């Protein structure tokens, strides 16, 4: 701009009052870009019809969409039945209803009638508010945690990982856990809540003693480690105490849990347990201490070596046979532990990928500035390693979320289990019943999985510091 201006003024100065035939006094307006390079047309040219193979694929895909989309819309919306009381609403004349011959579309009143069952399972009606509060707490805690701009991240995290699990346990199951002790033989003390706390105190002292001995052995100051252990045990005691308090809530056994709430319970437990366990296992596998690394390798390879369905099946069919006569563990608890251990093994390998991707200089740099092992992991290594493997982590989460449907093999009625169960109700039995419910199920699962995947892309972009 400035150049042209000064040139023009120079020209004027040279030519003086002499008039030339044509001198442009102002800039020519910028022309619009060529029509086939911009706008809708340009976008189509670039993305849909760039060359011949591209064009063929576009036309082919368009044809497929033309074949499926109208039918889908017809099936889901325009032809679907939206109200009714029983199977007759969705039955053709031949099936005893009033719809025309050959009608096939979604039967939404059936989903409506079963919606409560799909979401809450067989949770007692009078206690549904407890589930609702839990769900509200979950989303109210999760959403601000996921938005990077909001403050109080640390408090939020403490709420989600500390308060929420305990609160949701108490709310969903009713709390009031009977604590009868576990250590001393009955001859010394009758089983009671007091005995439990005595046992717990003994256990705490033993653990603190072991830690102190170990620290002595490594010739470092035992005080901080022992204090840390004691605080940890105190927190555990507090958690157990809250769980054992009688809040006057009606106990709801897990055989009444079900539906989407159960899917969330399993998935969230798995996800929350998998990340920390996975990080520890990944560090353990790369550790120089042979015992730790051997344990980690065996653990990871064992759980990765068997299918989840086997884990669930073993936990539900075989475990009761190994336990002493009459001792039964809650089925859901068994499944939860199985899922958590299983997913932590996968998570460990994902995290290990991130650890190995970091250049050695990062480790050496951390050591050079005088950080100890845990400090360097926490401050230098993990933030970088985890950032690299965000897609892998979210991949594992999504896989876990979908794998929860496998629990229906052991008779737990999760979201999909409830949907399958509802097919057995003759009140709504029609040819379209199964399809309708599966479409509904797929939609809900897609919503959650797609949400997770989009969020992971968002986080990747945000944390991208262009090292790669």
């Amino acid at each position, binding site marked *: 701009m400035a150049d042209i201006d000064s040139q023009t003024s120079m020209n004027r100065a040279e030519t003086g009052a002499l008039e030339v035939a044509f001198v442009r006094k102002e800039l020519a307006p910028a022309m619009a870009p060529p029509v086939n390079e911009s706008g809708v047309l340009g976008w189509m040219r670039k993305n849909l019809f760039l060359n011949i193979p591209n064009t063929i694929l576009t036309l082919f895909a368009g044809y497929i969409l033309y074949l499926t989309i109208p039918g889908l819309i017809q099936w889901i919306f325009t032809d679907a039945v939206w109200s009714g009381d029983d199977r007759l609403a969705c039955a053709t004349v031949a099936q005893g209803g009033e719809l025309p011959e050959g009608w096939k579309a979604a039967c939404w009143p059936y989903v409506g009638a079963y919606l409560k069952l799909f979401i809450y399972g067989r949770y007692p009606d009078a206690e549904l508010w407890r589930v609702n509060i839990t769900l509200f707490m979950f989303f109210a805690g999760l959403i601000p945690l996921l938005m990077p701009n909001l403050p109080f991240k640390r408090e939020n995290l403490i709420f989600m990982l500390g308060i929420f699990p305990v609160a949701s346990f108490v709310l969903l199951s009713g709390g009031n856990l009977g604590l009868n002790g576990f250590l001393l033989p009955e001859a010394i003390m009758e089983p009671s809540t007091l005995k439990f706390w005595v046992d717990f105190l003994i256990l705490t002292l033993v653990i603190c003693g072991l830690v102190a001995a170990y620290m002595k052995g490594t010739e470092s100051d035992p005080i901080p480690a022992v204090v840390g252990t004691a605080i940890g045990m105190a927190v555990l005691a507090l958690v157990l105490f809250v769980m054992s308090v009688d809040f006057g809530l009606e106990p709801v056994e897990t055989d009444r849990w079900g539906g989407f709430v159960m899917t969330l319970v399993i998935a969230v437990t798995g996800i929350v347990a998998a990340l920390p366990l996975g990080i520890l296992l990944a560090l353990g596998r790369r550790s120089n201490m042979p015992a730790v690394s051997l344990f980690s390798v065996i653990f990871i390879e064992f759980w990765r070596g068997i299918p989840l369905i086997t884990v669930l099946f073993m936990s539900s069919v075989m475990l*009761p046979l190994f336990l002493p006569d009459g001792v039964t563990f809650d089925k859901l608890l068994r499944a939860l532990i199985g899922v958590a251990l299983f997913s932590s093994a996968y998570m460990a390998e994902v995290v290990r990928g991130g650890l190995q991707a970091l250049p050695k200089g990062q480790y050496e740099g951390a050591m050079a500035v005088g950080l100890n092992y845990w400090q360097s992991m926490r401050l230098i290594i993990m933030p970088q390693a985890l950032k690299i493997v965000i897609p892998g982590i979210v991949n594992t989460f999504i896989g876990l979320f979908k794998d929860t449907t496998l629990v229906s093999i052991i008779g737990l009625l999760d979201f999909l289990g409830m949907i399958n169960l509802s097919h057995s109700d003759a009140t709504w039995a029609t040819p379209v019943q*199964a399809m309708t419910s599966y479409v509904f199920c797929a939609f809900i699962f897609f919503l959650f999985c797609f949400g997770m995947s989009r969020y992971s892309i968002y986080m990747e972009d945000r944390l991208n510091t262009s090292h790669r």
Partner: protein
Amino acid sequence: MKKTIVSALGVVALSVSALSASAATLDDVKAKGFVQCGVSQGLPGFSNPDSAGNWTGIDVDLCRGVAAAVFGDATKVKYTPLSAKERFTALQSGEIDVLSRNTTWTATRDTTLGLNFAGVNYYDGQGFMVRKDLGVKSALELSGASVCTNTGTTTELNVADYFTTNKLEYEIVAFEKADEVVAAYDAGRCDVYTTDQSGLYAQRLKLTNPADHVVLPEIISKEPLGPVVRQGDDQWFNLVKWTHFAMVNAEELGITSENAEAMKSSDNPAIKRVLGTEGEFGAALGVGNDWAFNIISQVGNYAESFNRNVGPDTPLAISRGTNDLWSKGGLQYAPPIR
């Protein structure tokens, strides 16, 4: 019974309960206050939850009957949905008190699993469904047919037995889930659909044009379905057995849930014995003397249970057939209460 709740350290135990290893199921049940009943993962008319989540069905009614006999309250039942594979383990390990899950009574199951079958609350049998336009009148005309069925059940083996014995050609098209089998049959992937007859009636509702299909008269297998208990606990075995018998006896004597109260003043000694106004039959079973009255007034007699769950007025519309009383040409026969 001694019930202790054990809490393992650090385990967020949802409910970890250790029941003492005594054989007296009845005492255990009385102490914990409910009957733990193993049911199916949804079989129409036998055990399936309705849209409000309440379990209903013939098998469920039996469990409710047991609870009524023990507690005088048919609602004191907790249900454990079990897959076909885990049902026996659940009973053996003491996870459930009674298995009422359309389980076929066979010699192997009765003798080798450490279990006892406590009667037959539904006589079923495997049947065939075909399209009317095939013009088939008997299963013996099915040579060369492709047969749709579920994988991994006795139905597949029964078909093999039947077709080989009668020297008929056949081809099995097997699927994992009942819904897939029906969809395949409806779409014409196979000529014949076979499963237990009660199942045929239930799945017929899911066909595009139910009137175009006909259930063939042949029953190719015996499937007596009944409740199962652990072996070696005769008291509990008796109670479950007589719960079913009480319902059948009540039907025979014309006692229903509506008239049970009025029937108490009947002069018929047989009715008086059932309703506990005469004799001490409840005490012998280890429950209250009004045990049968509670079953009948809260759950109903066998006919009421049948009609409510699978009978002609339900979508399943199964006729009594072999499940009618012995006096009406069926097989339901209960020893007298005396």
